[in-house]
């Protein structure tokens, strides 16, 4: 029998099918609501140009700082821009930041963690590196990167990636060390499977659901960090709409028109809340081992 014919071994005797996961998620009312909210938010972000009632960058100085009304559902900001339109576009930027940060960070972190578990010689080095990375809170990395390249979305993305890598590396290593102890790893080695195949098809495939669930759990946090950097002025620069930065701009008018700062903050809260609830539910269904 050739090695290829063996296929990829999996840990679960009965693999959790996609429809099964969905059904279990939908049974939980909270998770179902979170899924619906998050889907709507993502759709709104994708179709922002269609959905936004006004141009998010169009200033009209005759209608500055208006409270929510029938014409402007979320009111207008200090330069008369429609806040609803800006929140829709801002959601787009904020979501993108979180998604790119989590995906790239997850890729690097997962890779490092799996390598550390597979090659004991690298383990010490990689974990020390992770320790050093952990010593820099994400906000600090954002500040440092912004100082080098100038404030902007790129600085925030780099900070979010660096913030994601060490945690994911730890979780991936933990999961991979568990898989390394399985008999099929030994069997694979015994029949002469190459290291690359062992890593990709044996190890990675069996760790991927743990990493994925962890990334879902981190997504909310990453968005919070990204928007905090935006709030500090290290992220998107005006007039670009990004929720954290919008909240910071509204801070100057907090006592005259509190809605300018409150509505973008509230939008971040709703997104992160939905992401956290969905992450929790996904973890319960897919990987209860991650539960604290």
């Amino acid at each position, binding site marked *: 029998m050739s090695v290829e014919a063996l296929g990829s071994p999996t840990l679960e005797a009965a693999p959790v099918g996609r429809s099964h996961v969905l059904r279990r998620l939908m049974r939980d009312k909270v998770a179902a609501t979170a899924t619906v909210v998050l889907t709507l938010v993502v759709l709104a972000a994708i179709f922002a140009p269609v959905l936004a009632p006004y141009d998010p960058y169009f200033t009209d100085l005759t209608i500055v700082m208006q409270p929510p009304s029938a014409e402007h559902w979320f009111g207008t900001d200090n330069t008369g821009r429609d806040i609803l339109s800006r929140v829709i576009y801002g959601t787009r930027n904020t979501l993108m930041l979180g998604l790119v940060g989590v995906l790239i960070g997850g890729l690097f972190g997962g890779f490092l963690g799996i390598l550390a578990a597979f090659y004991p010689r690298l383990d010490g080095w990689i974990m020390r590196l992770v320790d*050093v990375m952990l010593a*820099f*809170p994400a*906000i600090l990395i954002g*500040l440092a990167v912004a*100082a080098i390249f100038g404030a902007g979305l790129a600085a925030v993305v780099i900070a979010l990636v660096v913030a994601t890598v060490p945690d994911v590396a730890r979780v991936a290593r933990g999961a991979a060390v568990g898989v390394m102890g399985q008999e099929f790893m030994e069997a694979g080695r015994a029949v002469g499977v190459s290291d690359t195949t062992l890593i990709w098809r044996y190890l990675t495939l069996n760790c991927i659901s743990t990493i994925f669930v962890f990334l879902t759990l981190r997504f909310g946090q990453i968005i919070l960090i990204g928007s905090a950097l935006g709030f500090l002025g290290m992220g998107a620069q005006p007039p670009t709409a990004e929720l954290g930065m919008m909240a910071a701009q509204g*801070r100057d008018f907090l006592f005259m028109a509190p809605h300018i700062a*409150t509505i973008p903050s509230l939008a*971040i809260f709703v997104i992160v809340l939905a992401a956290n609830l969905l992450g929790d539910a996904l973890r319960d269904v897919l990987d209860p081992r991650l539960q604290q």
Partner: protein
Amino acid sequence: MARQIVHRLLISFPALLGVLFLCFCWLQVVPADPAMIIAGPDAKAETIAAIRLELGLDRPIPVQFMEYILRVLRGDLGRSIISNKMVTEELGMTIGPTVELMVGGMLIAVPSGLALGTLAAVNRGRIADRIIMACSVAGVSMPVFFIGLLLIQYVGFKWALLPFTGRTGPVWDGGLPSLILPAATLGAVLIGPIARLTRTAVLEVLGADFVRTARAKGLRETVVIVHHALRNALIPVVTLIGLQAAFLLGGAVVTETMFSWPGVGRLAVGAIVSSDFPTAQGAIMILAMAFLLINLLVDVLYVYLDPRVQRS
């Protein structure tokens, strides 16, 4: 226990060296030449070259790194480009307020988190449990600045109960009112996770044999919960605080900026905005070291709380 601490100190040494190395690298890539800054905008090329020689900027990078470490050990982090004060002096003025803010935040977060978590565990499945857990998830999902904005808007401005800009002085010298809102903002972020973990930990301990024994002895329920259950539940909570240290420091940066709190975080943000790289480097280094220190303290506290760790 002393051996444990020494061991832990040795382990954090590579991380400390890494922090220094990254700060050094950062200063190399930052778009500012110290020689040009010292020489002034209209200095001649020879002057700049002379200053470069004097500062040792022409020497190989590894040599410069060693010198950098020696300088940091001597407490010389350079001069601020903006205020021309020594960076260490600037840091000395800002560390106090930051420590005050973080301790204040913890003093708000830890007791309320423990109390809420225990309350939820004892009332498992009942309405109190559900409300507390819902609030805890909501709390985790709130941006720090949102909490701050709400506190400023209502408690500070509308109801005019507490000051919300700047620091009037040290806590022991009438500074307490100005500390409350920033500390509450910072602490609020941690209440949720602490409550959640406390609930899980207390629930686990409540099922343990020694709790049953304590009850069988006829101890009062409060004694059982506070002395037997909560004390043991503290261990995971302490770990959580170590894990959340990064979050706490990041939160401090945002909180200080919002409340014009004269701490290290605000110093860092201000320095970066005004391209004051020596100051920014010093502030970032101190914050990273603070992170290592918090984790060190957590490990030491661990040994104190759980004697089993000491033996293993």
